[in-house]
């Protein structure tokens, strides 16, 4: 029975830790503190978590490269005239 309970705890910890981001208010969230405490008892879970954090860092970097077009922003700020309307739009 204990083994099954451990597995459930590990699954639950993984679900919670997938949302964790270090250096933010997550560090003081009791939900994450509890899940992070599991890492010191489970090397495999700690290794999984490390890989997960690395994946998140790479993904965030990929998304940061999305260019932001500024024509609409300029229009909203009154710095540019709206484009001429085209048929079918």
């Amino acid at each position: 029975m204990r083994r099954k309970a451990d597995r459930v705890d590990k699954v639950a910890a993984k679900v919670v830790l997938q949302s964790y981001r270090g250096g933010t208010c997550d560090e003081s969230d009791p939900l994450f503190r509890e899940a992070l405490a599991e890492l010191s008892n489970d090397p495999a879970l700690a290794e999984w978590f490390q890989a997960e954090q690395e994946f998140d860092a790479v993904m965030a970097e990929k998304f940061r490269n999305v260019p932001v077009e500024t024509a609409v922003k300029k229009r909203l700020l009154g710095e540019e005239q709206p484009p001429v309307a085209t048929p079918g739009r």
Partner: protein
Amino acid sequence: MEHLKLFKSAPRGSTSFADFVEENFAPAYRFAFCLSLAHESANHLTESVFGQAREAKANGANGAIDKRWLLAALRREWNGSDESPVAICPETHQSIGAADVATLNPDVVLETLHGMRLERRLILSLFYFERLSYLEIAGVLGLPAETVLARLADAKIELRQRLEMRRTQKSSALEPPVGAAKGRSSG
């Protein structure tokens, strides 16, 4: 009401529309682009939602119009435009590692994200693009925090599997068609 405290917002009535645009345009645009994967649609969505924000502010709702409001409004605007992505079987696919993701073109990552169901794409966009916490995402999407935790975990697993599929498809496309060569030699 708790989620309203999660975003920093200026004191009621003190933020001009120009300041609001300066502060929030880039995250709103990136989120819109992530939803639509097209600059034309992202422009249309952001212009429409900022137009709503300007109107609401003019009508005295200044304090309620913040980044959370913008993201939620973008989500509503895009809701009717979801397509039917190809489903994958979770048990049969490997997950990609960080080192392999790093080698992928950002466009491939975005296209992969765009192939996912809207509810998962939304959560991933808010988590990676906007770097929101699960509580903030719950506020934007109007979902219980527990639901966000579960959906984010599932969405990340699916994303890693889809990225691995893209990576291996790309690799196999460069290799000679082994099966086809065998077929010819036996015939």
